[in-house]
Structures are given as structure tokens and as C-alpha cells.
């Protein structure tokens, strides 16, 4: 938005050719220069767009095409036209609706507490604090932990017979919970891994936005005798709305493609998302369709459905932004 360079690319080259038309080396230099000004930018963006097109854009488009065909993992070069067959089948498949429901439920269970906690944490971090860097780094360590490592540890902590969580619950007088095999317990457990990994990261995003809020707003609020809580609700949160919206969208997209946590929480048959598919997400469903039942066309239909959901989220985001702007 700030790129207001007044230079038009051809101006530096033009006078040179005009003043020195007879001098062959200079004019060759000028021609080279003009050529460079014209094509240089494309040379700079070419590596990015080459990789981006081959490995991101084309696969995405091809996914849409393949979702209309019957393709098997065992003979991927044979593609038969199937029309909307895969989609019709998908809509009739209770396991698809189950995966969609699980994705939404786990998405809400993980996104809402995560962002609310992050907001509160950022508020705490925003005060004058001793060892500020220590707190920030400590809260960011879960972000450095990979999905795989985190899920392996949490699976052990949530173990039915000898897990630490059940041991603590037992000490508090509550019965042991079969975390993996229960429906809600498993969804909660999977969500808790997401919350654990991303809360600190989001807190730092909010903190960055809070530091950009002008001091005068707080000063005048303080003069009005507003308490810290009131300052938080009436100064901080409204100023942070764009950032909050941004994190909501990013977390929602993350929740839509949730994969590693439920896969590894499920142990050996993880792609099923539990014995009765109670925590199978859309990502796992896609994986199972493609790599365990070998129907690549169906897997693509799932992927393309996820893409449509994504567009829906993006549209919602656009609408919300417009509404916010109207508000002031």
C-alpha cells in the first residue's frame, strides 16, 4: 500500500539512448539497461512463482479436477470421469458428517479457550514486568514443541490406567476417565493439545498489538478513573479488534485442517480417529480415503469440500471486516 515510488522504469534509460545514439558501446549498455529495467522484476519474482505454481497452485486446481474423476492409488494414471459422483456419495456418507461435526466441535473447543486465555495473558504481559523476556520465551515453548512430540506426551498423560491426569483426578475423588474411548473426553483431550501449543503464540500476537495502542488512550482512561479491568474492556479490546479477527481466522483455518493431534492420539489405527470415529476430523477422513482405502478421487472431493469451507470462512472474515470498519 505504501509503494509510491515515483520512478517509471523507462525514464533512466531513455535519455541515455537519446543523447548518445552514435556511440555503439554506450547504446549497447543502454539497451541492456532498458532490457534489465523491463525484465529484471520478472527475474526476481520468477523463482517464487515457479515453485508456487508447480507445488501449490496447480495441485490445488488439479485437486478440483481429480475430485470429478475416479482415481485409485494403485493405478493413478487411469482417471475415469465420475462427475459429481464423489460429492453425492460424500453427502450420503455418515462418516463424512461425523468428521465434519468433529472438526467443528474440536475447532470450537480449541479455538475459544485458546484465544480468550491468550487475550488475558497478553494483558498480564503488557504490564511493567520483571524478567519480561523470560515469561515470553516460557509461554512460547509449546509452540516450539512439534505436534508429534506434544501429542505423544499428552497421550501418555491421558492414559486410562496409569496416566497422570487420571491419577490426579483419582486423588481428587473423581473416577478414572477413559479419555481415548469416550466421545467427549477424547475431543476434549485433543482440543487441550491444540490449546496448549498455541495459546502462548497468540498471546504474543495480542501483546504486539497492545504495544501499538497509543499511550494517550490509557492516560485519558486513567484520568477518568477507569480501573485496569475497565481499561482492558474499553480501551484494549476495541483497539485490538483487527488482530483478534485475524487470529480468529488463522485459528479457524488451523482447526479446519486439524490432523496430527487426532492421528497420533489414536495410536496404531489413528486415521480412524478412535474406535467409533469419535474424534476423526476432516483431515483424517481425507487421509483414510486416500491412503487406506486407496480412493484418491474421493480424497480429492473431501479436500475440495474443505476448500469450499475455507472460502466460506474467508467470506465471513471479509464481511466482519467491513462491519468493523463501519463501526469506526
Amino acid at each position, binding site marked *: 500500500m505504501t509503494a509510491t*515510488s515515483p520512478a517509471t522504469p523507462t525514464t*533512466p534509460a531513455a535519455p541515455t539512448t537519446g543523447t548518445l545514439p552514435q556511440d555503439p558501446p554506450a547504446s549497447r549498455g543502454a539497451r541492456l539497461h532498458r532490457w534489465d529495467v523491463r525484465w529484471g522484476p520478472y527475474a526476481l519474482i520468477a523463482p517464487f512463482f515457479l515453485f508456487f505454481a508447480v507445488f501449490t497452485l496447480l495441485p490445488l486446481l488439479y485437486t478440483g479436477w481429480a475430485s470429478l474423476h475416479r482415481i485409485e492409488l494403485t493405478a493413478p494414471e487411469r482417471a475415469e470421469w465420475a462427475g459429481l459422483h464423489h460429492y453425492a456419495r460424500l453427502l450420503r456418507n455418515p462418516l463424512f458428517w461425523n468428521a465434519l461435526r468433529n472438526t467443528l466441535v474440536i475447532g470450537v473447543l480449541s479455538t475459544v479457550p485458546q484465544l480468550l486465555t491468550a487475550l488475558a495473558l497478553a494483558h498480564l504481559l503488557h504490564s*511493567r514486568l520483571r524478567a519480561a523476556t523470560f515469561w515470553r520465551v516460557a509461554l512460547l515453548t509449546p509452540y516450539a514443541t512439534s505436534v508429534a512430540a506434544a501429542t505423544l506426551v499428552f497421550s501418555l498423560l491421558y492414559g486410562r490406567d496409569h496416566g497422570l491426569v487420571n491419577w490426579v483426578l483419582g486423588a481428587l475423588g473423581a473416577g478414572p476417565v477413559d479419555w481415548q474411548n469416550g466421545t467427549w473426553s477424547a475431543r476434549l483431550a485433543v482440543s487441550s493439545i491444540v490449546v496448549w501449543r498455541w495459546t502462548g503464540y497468540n498471546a504474543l500476537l495480542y501483546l504486539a498489538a497492545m504495544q501499538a495502542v497509543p499511550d494517550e488512550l490509557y492516560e485519558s482512561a486513567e484520568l477518568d478513573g477507569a480501573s485496569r479491568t475497565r481499561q482492558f474492556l474499553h480501551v484494549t479490546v476495541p483497539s485490538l479488534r483487527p488482530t483478534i479477527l485475524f487470529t480468529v481466522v488463522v485459528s479457524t483455518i488451523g482447526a479446519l485442517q486439524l490432523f496430527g493431534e487426532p492421528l497420533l492420539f489414536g495410536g496404531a489405527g489413528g486415521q480412524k480417529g478412535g474406535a467409533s470415529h469419535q474424534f476423526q476430523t476432516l483431515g483424517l477422513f481425507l487421509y483414510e480415503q486416500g491412503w487406506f482405502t486407496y480412493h484418491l478421487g474421493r480424497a480429492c472431493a473431501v479436500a475440495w469440500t474443505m476448500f469450499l469451507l475455507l472460502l466460506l470462512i474467508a467470506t465471513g472474515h471479509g464481511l466482519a471486516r467491513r462491519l468493523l470498519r463501519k463501526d469506526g
Partner: protein
Amino acid sequence: MTTRARGHSSAGPLTYAALALVTAVSLFPLLWTAVAASHDSARLARTPPPLWFGGHLPHNLRVAWTDAGLGLALANTVLVAGTVALGTVLCCTVAGFAFARLRFRGSRPLLLLTVGTMMVPPQLGVVPLFLLMARLGWAGELRAVVLPALVSAFGVFFMRQYLSGALPAELVEAARVDGAHTGRVVWHVVLPAARPAMVVLGMLSFVQSWNDFFWPVVALTQENPTVQVALTGLGRGYVPDQAVVMAGALLGTLPLLLAFALLGRRITGGVMQGALKG
């Protein structure tokens, strides 16, 4: 970053208590990974679970390193994440510069395309990507996970935003008037100005690549895994010993944790900077 809101009260004991609680929750699973990795699997199958270190850590680490292939996996991951970070930084810096400071036909639609697809998760294209790699004969090889991750739309946008602010247009023009060609401008003007943002982007890309999950799990096998693929193998029961699994999780996490501890301020600063630009 050191400027703090002057009108802001300093933290009271309650603030510290709350922060300490959240920090404990953040660190506990990692600490407990180390605790669990220092016992044998028989001890982990007894109640109450261990809360302090036992004596089996070296043995478990050794088994995880050799039998579970974590040694190879770590070497592979360093190679993959390093290449990805380097490639992302280079490609995105020059492209970001072109979008920030150069005029060329089609720059606006191309930038819109980049920003518009920034949020699309690459995992939606896994099936064609898998077929492509199989056709090229690269399935199971490291380049199958390096190439698709080598550039990032976010990186281009991030560098463009940064250079729009940090690189004065006059500087580029002055170099141009002196007759410097694009390559010289990039080398002598753009790269020095972009260095702080390049460091941030490099760190973020490295962490992201290190922890990349879906595509590596699909594309690679246990014969030649990255850390995440090897840990997935552990988690799916290829090695039934829980203590060894925890030792593997510890090995796979330790390098990044050490980097975070050493570069703490830079990394938190980088995340916060990335937030403002994104």
C-alpha cells in the same frame, strides 16, 4: 520493544502468580517428557506415575537414537529445515523487493494472487502432489518435502511489507541512476536493508519446517524419515516401549528448545513482528 506504556501500572503479585501458573502448565509436559524418558516402560505402567527422574535416560536415548532412527531423522530434519529456511528467505526477499519497489506489468494481480492464496493450507493439494512425486520417482526422498516448502506466499507478503517501510525508494533510484543493474541493486541495496526481516523470516520458516507434519507423513517412509515422521512411527506402535517413545519425543524437541532458550528475545520479537506485518 523496550518502550512500555508509561501510563501502565507495574505488575502486582497476582499478575506474577497467574503468569507463573500458566508458565508451569506450558513447561510441565516438556519436563515430564524428560521424566518419563528416564524410567523403563515397566515403571510407566505403574500407578502413581513417576514425578522425578529415574536412571534409564541414557539407555532410552541410545535406543531411540539408533533403533527408532532418531539420529538419521534429526540429520534429515536439519538438512530439510535449513534448506527450506534458506530458500524461503532468498526467494521471498527478492520477490518482496520487486513487489515493494519496482514497477512492472501485472504486479498488482500477481500480488493479489499471492496474498489471496496465503491462507490456503497446502495440505488441500496433497493428492496431486503425491501423484507428482510418485511420477518423478521422488516419493520417500527428502526433496519431496523440501521442494513444496521452498517458497511461501506469506514470506513474500511479509518481505514486501517490511521493505515498503525500510527501503527508501530514493536509494533504489540513486543506484539505478548510477547504472547499477537489478542484480547489483539487490546485492548492494536490498539485502543489507532487508537483513533484520530476513532473519525473522528465516527463523519462522525453520521452526515451521521442523514441525511440518501432514505432507512429510504422506510423502516419506520410516526408512528415511524426518523427526516428525519418525515420531509418528513411534506413536503408531512401531516401537512399543513407551519410555523409548518419550526419549524420541525429547530428542526431536530438544534442538528447537535449545535454540529458543539461546535466541529467546530474537524469537519472541520475531513472532511479534510477524504478527504486526501479517
